[in-house]
């Protein structure tokens, strides 16, 4: 067995984990599976690409690669803008679609179907604006550096792993040590009691959308940086995202990240052992086994 699968799995897992954090937060607070979350990944990547291109056209110096990486300063700056824009998009979708449905106290199935509709609309719009042709942040070739033990990784890959790790720690601290984090946990556990305790659930919901969309944007940029950018990139990640969110335990940020890494590693192992065409089946099998054997996941609470 090629040990490189560990590195491939960790890198794919980091992207899955970041996306799964958004799914798990949305599910634990809004109580529905948001199938439009994958589109935030795609939109995040395209918005970063467009902003990066715009910045590059304003100043060519911003396109000059930073140190060993394949991208210039235009990309980190574009990511900041894209995170804000993707968060804004999520808030817009909530204001136009999910918010009015919540007001009418719509059933969970209505919310899920609405998220399917939003997913289709957002993806089609993306395809209409950017076409379905794959695009890249950079076409520069990167040499993978030997890390020992038969493992190799490019500087971009190592940076992505580091960013994912920093973000998970940051989100965990936000949830456990800050006022807004405690409010999010409170709304997740008992929205009515949270209201009685003076917590504005609408503010918490807005924070969750922004946080989830921001992380999805970064996952999209990572995917775009390491693979390619396509309108279907987020949709294709949905199954592993849900597998990771459920395996990690709904509401658990460290759980989602750890489960993302497990799903990523399992997919990489599956690709090596049985072939790339079975990649999606691996996430599906994990999803089915978790739902059958431990529906609360690794870190979730049993109902």
């Amino acid at each position, binding site marked *: 067995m090629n040990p490189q699968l560990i590195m491939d799995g960790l890198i794919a897992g980091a992207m899955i984990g970041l996306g799964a954090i958004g799914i798990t937060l949305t599910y634990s607070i809004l109580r529905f599976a948001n199938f439009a979350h994958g589109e935030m990944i795609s939109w995040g990547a395209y918005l970063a690409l467009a902003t990066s291109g715009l910045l590059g056209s304003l100043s060519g110096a911003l396109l000059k690669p930073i140190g060993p990486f394949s991208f210039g300063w235009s990309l980190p700056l574009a990511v900041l803008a894209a995170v804000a824009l993707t968060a804004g998009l999520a808030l817009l979708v909530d204001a136009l679609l999910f918010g009015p449905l919540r007001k009418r106290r719509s059933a969970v199935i209505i919310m899920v179907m609405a998220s399917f509709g939003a997913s289709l609309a957002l993806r089609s719009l993306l395809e209409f604006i950017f076409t379905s042709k794959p695009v890249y942040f950079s076409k520069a070739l990167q040499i993978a550096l030997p890390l020992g033990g038969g493992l190799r990784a490019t500087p971009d890959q190592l940076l992505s792993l580091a960013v994912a790790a920093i973000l998970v720690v940051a989100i965990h601290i936000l949830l456990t040590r800050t*006022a807004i984090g*405690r*409010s999010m*946990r*409170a709304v997740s*556990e*008992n929205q*009515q*009691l*949270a*209201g*009685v*305790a*003076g*917590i*504005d*659930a609408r503010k918490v919901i807005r924070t969750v959308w922004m946080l989830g969309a921001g992380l999805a944007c970064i996952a999209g940029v990572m995917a775009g940086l390491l693979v390619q950018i396509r309108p279907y990139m987020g949709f294709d990640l949905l199954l592993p995202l849900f597998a990771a969110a459920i395996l990690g335990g709904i509401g658990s940020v460290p759980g989602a990240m750890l489960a993302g890494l497990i799903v990523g590693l399992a997919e990489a192992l599956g690709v090596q052992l049985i072939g790339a065409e079975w990649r999606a089946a691996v996430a599906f099998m994990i999803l089915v086994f978790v739902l059958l054997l431990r529906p609360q996941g690794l870190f979730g*609470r049993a109902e």
Partner: protein
Amino acid sequence: MTGPQPSALSTRALVAGYEPDLPIVRGVDFSIRSGELVIVLGPNGAGKSTFVKAIAGLVPIHSGATMLGGFDITAVPTHEKIRHGLAFVPQTENIFATMSIHDNLLLAANVLPKEKRSRRVADLYAMFPDLAARPSLRAGQLSGGQRQMLAVARALIVEPSVLILDEPSAGLSPKIVQEVFAQLKAINDTGVTIILVEQNVKAALAIADRAAILVEGQLRHEGPAATLAEDPIVAELYLGARPAGKAATP
């Protein structure tokens, strides 16, 4: 000579319920004076819990008004009511069980200005030493009585003018009920106005100033707690006594 004490909280022709065409509370006029402890009694299904939940903003109000110290809070959202000085302790699921005792209190303290938060948490720990002993303990691991104390502490952290409790004795042993009620009386003695919905009538009447009786969503009777405790109708309905002249069935 002093004038009549101001009303701390009142309702006027309050109609409330989960469905607009099925009101559970039907035109209740109720008033509690500042510093009073009033117990709300009534048979099962009388609408007691719905009445206090409507005041707290958890059940839709279809008509009528709720006034808090002269300010109309009928349309004030639930999460804003605590900022106006109205605290509510639900009957069940009244603490965040997955969070620590300390986080439960910090969460409630969020509505206070930053500089006051740690002082109020410290005040509450002084008032409830049981909670101070293990602040990092997960609230779900507390006993029934300790949970009620945490729920009350959470509500008190904002120094409310009116505290409403929905059956705080539910599911507690008689000894713990006495402790909880003694604590509530002590809180009331500090000047906090308390509305208490209770099934444990004897114990509640012992600490209450006044009682209000709801029947079928309407306020049927009210009066001083001491008088009501002696009232044969109340005694028959809520204290398990038989009316005079009726022989016990063999």
